């Protein structure tokens, strides 16, 4: 038998195949409803999603929650494209500056009902309020999820070897002198490391020094006036310039990962970082872990402040084109009402994910974590000690919520100012003035958010 293919037949087959190929994804999507949950890179969002799927299996057959890990300097890319495609995620774990911005943009679903269902106000650990996580103009748009404060990480053996005092009461002067002493004592090792790359981590590290000196980017108390070019900000950048002499030269390209790498490979005596450095050292570098201690950030000599850039992280929910609002809220409440799930969440990347609820923070399964047992003083600093100094760009020095900060989040102006000083040898005052103009542009372009 011979098979003869006519032109008509070829065309019909081709069109049918093309149609089938195009329809396949749509058909596949109708088989199971998938609600996407966004979170930071790390295992914790997966753990939370597992808890939500436990609810779905019992209460919403055919629905599956799926976690997607998104780095926070990539969140805008993803969010912008998904919103433009009218296909947002069901739920986003987000740092509060972005929550404030999106709430002010009118893009979020109110969350009072969830916060009531989980008794968030009563259960929240001391020092935080539900509003800190994402309230705008009296409406709660975020549900508390975790906190992470940026702190001063020190290798105590290196510190003692350099003859330095207990860092508990250190000021900026002690930090600079201590870093110099460590550098002199240990050839080839940095005295101190922070991120100075043009990235989010650089922004965070720099901002906490600005706040400690008493500076701010915008002042909510004065109609969100741009106040970046204050003497305090210039002082902070001058301090960074001096401190840079004790850092690896390549710190100007460092982001999150490089700072942790530097510390856990024993190439620095101290650094600024969140809890993850301890977790990485516990997993990969036991001798470093054993001598590692966390302290509050060194105080500014004049203001005495030790502000910490803190991820005040909550769940927010896109309001438009989100078909999973009711189910995601119920599933979220199911997980958050379970101390067991919330402990699993915090334990999945210990001690990076600070517990937000009292029952979670005091649960035996969390307190008995080996790292908690071995490093109680440091973990207490990470979980509770820093809380009086917890703020971020959306709530600078706790002087008021600011939705402009979310927009500043993606632009790396703070770290660009540092790079102009350190890489281009620009005068700190001139570089700060450049930064001031960028922030003023953000304020002018987004005045509508301030209402």
């Amino acid at each position: 038998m011979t098979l003869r293919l006519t032109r008509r037949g070829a065309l019909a087959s081709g069109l049918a195949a093309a149609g089938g190929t195009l329809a396949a994804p749509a058909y596949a999507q109708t088989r199971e409803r998938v609600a996407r949950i966004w979170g930071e890179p790390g295992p914790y969002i997966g753990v939370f999603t597992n808890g939500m799927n436990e609810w779905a299996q019992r209460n919403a057959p055919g629905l599956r929650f799926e976690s997607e890990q998104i780095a926070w300097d990539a969140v805008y890319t993803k969010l912008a494209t998904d919103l433009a495609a009218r296909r947002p995620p069901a739920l986003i774990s987000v740092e509060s500056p972005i929550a404030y911005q999106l709430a002010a943009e009118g893009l979020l679903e109110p969350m009072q009902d969830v916060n009531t269902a989980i008794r968030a106000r009563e259960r929240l650990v001391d020092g935080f309020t539900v509003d800190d996580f994402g309230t705008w103009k009296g409406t709660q748009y975020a549900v508390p999820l975790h906190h992470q404060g940026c702190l001063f990480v020190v290798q105590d053996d290196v510190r003692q070897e350099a003859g330095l005092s207990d860092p508990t009461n250190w000021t900026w002067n002690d930090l600079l002198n201590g870093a110099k002493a460590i550098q002199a004592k240990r050839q080839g090792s940095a005295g101190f490391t922070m991120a100075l790359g043009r990235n989010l981590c650089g922004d965070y590290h720099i901002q906490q020094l600005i706040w400690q000196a008493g500076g701010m980017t915008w002042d909510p108390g004065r109609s969100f006036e741009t106040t970046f070019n204050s003497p305090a900000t210039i002082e902070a950048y001058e301090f960074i310039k001096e401190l840079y002499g004790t850092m690896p030269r390549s710190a100007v390209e460092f982001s999150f990962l490089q700072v942790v790498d530097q510390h856990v490979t024993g190439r620095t005596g101290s650094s600024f970082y969140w809890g993850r450095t301890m977790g990485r050292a516990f997993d990969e570098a036991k001798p470093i872990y054993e001598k590692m201690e966390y302290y509050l950030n060194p105080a500014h000599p004049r203001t005495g402040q030790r502000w910490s850039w803190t991820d005040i992280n909550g769940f927010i929910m896109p309001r438009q084109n989100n078909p999973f609002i009711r189910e995601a809220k119920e599933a979220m409440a199911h997980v958050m009402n379970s101390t067991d799930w919330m402990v699993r969440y915090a334990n999945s990347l210990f001690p990076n994910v600070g517990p937000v609820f009292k029952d979670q923070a005091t649960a035996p399964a969390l307190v008995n974590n080996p790292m908690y047992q071995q490093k109680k003083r440091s973990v207490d600093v990470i979980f509770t000690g820093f809380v009086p100094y917890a703020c971020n760009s959306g709530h600078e020095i706790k002087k008021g919520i600011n939705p402009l900060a979310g927009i500043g989040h993606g632009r790396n102006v703070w770290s660009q100012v540092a790079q102009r000083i350190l890489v281009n040898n620009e005068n700190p005052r001139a570089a700060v003035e450049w930064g001031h103009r960028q922030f003023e542009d953000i304020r002018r372009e987004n005045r509508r958010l301030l209402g």
Partner: protein
Amino acid sequence: MRFRLSDRQVGVLFMLPLILAVGIFLVWPIAEAVRLSFVRYNPLRPDDQPFVGLDNYLFVLEDPLFWESFWQAIVWTGWSTVLQAVIGVGLALLLHQPLKGMNAFRGLLLFPYIVPTVVIALNWRWLFNSEIGIVNHLLLSVGLIDEKIAWLSTPSMAMASAIMLNVWKYTPFVVIVVLARLQTIPTELYDAAKVDGAGVLRRFRDITLPQLAEVLAVVIVFRTIWTFNKFEEIYLLTRGGPGTSTYNLALYAFDQSIANLRMGVGAAAGVIMLVLLLAGSMLYIRVSGFGREDKAA
């Protein structure tokens, strides 16, 4: 009634997939970019797109970072393309030699071109990490340098590192194309030149180069366009830093669109890039005389 198509109608139907593909994936995105460049568009508010005339173009042309990015894009594209062409032709000549095992070398040469850019860029970040990178470690070990080189932390070294990555990854493309052309040059030309007493350099200058001219013109146009538009390598390797020392126009357009939420400004930058490349390519093709011989024939 039996439905019959004429040959002409069938021909049109066969062309339809191509017309649709070009329309959807080429014409429509360009038209959409041009449209976006005349509106103010915050991607978080996709339904709100007021017409702003030439404001986005004025913003771009008045922005010092655009001009800084433009000149850096020229440096990045110029060095990358020239080095790829020179090294590519050199390697192609070597691989054209009838030596044992040459096919294996030709296969291996494709490796950088095959590996995804994201893998290469992240590996290079590790290799060139000034603290724990193997490049500094090796150079220190053999005594070639006394102190670590900040490969990605100083403006000039960061640009040089980015160019090196681009040259390493895309030279194989030049090699493949040039090698294919070399294999079609009639050997009689070389034999005749040898009989006439032409040396190696003379044969290269008077036979090989003229024979390669057309293919090199095409390769250089393509490599220039692709390199000028290149985004992911610089983004993944240096993110435009340190400072803005490795910013190119693609990165500028991306940052304006996504980080600064000014999609209209990003689109305007993209349209300006399109015009620049179109003008540059036409000028280059005219100067290089590409296709002139065919027309004469």
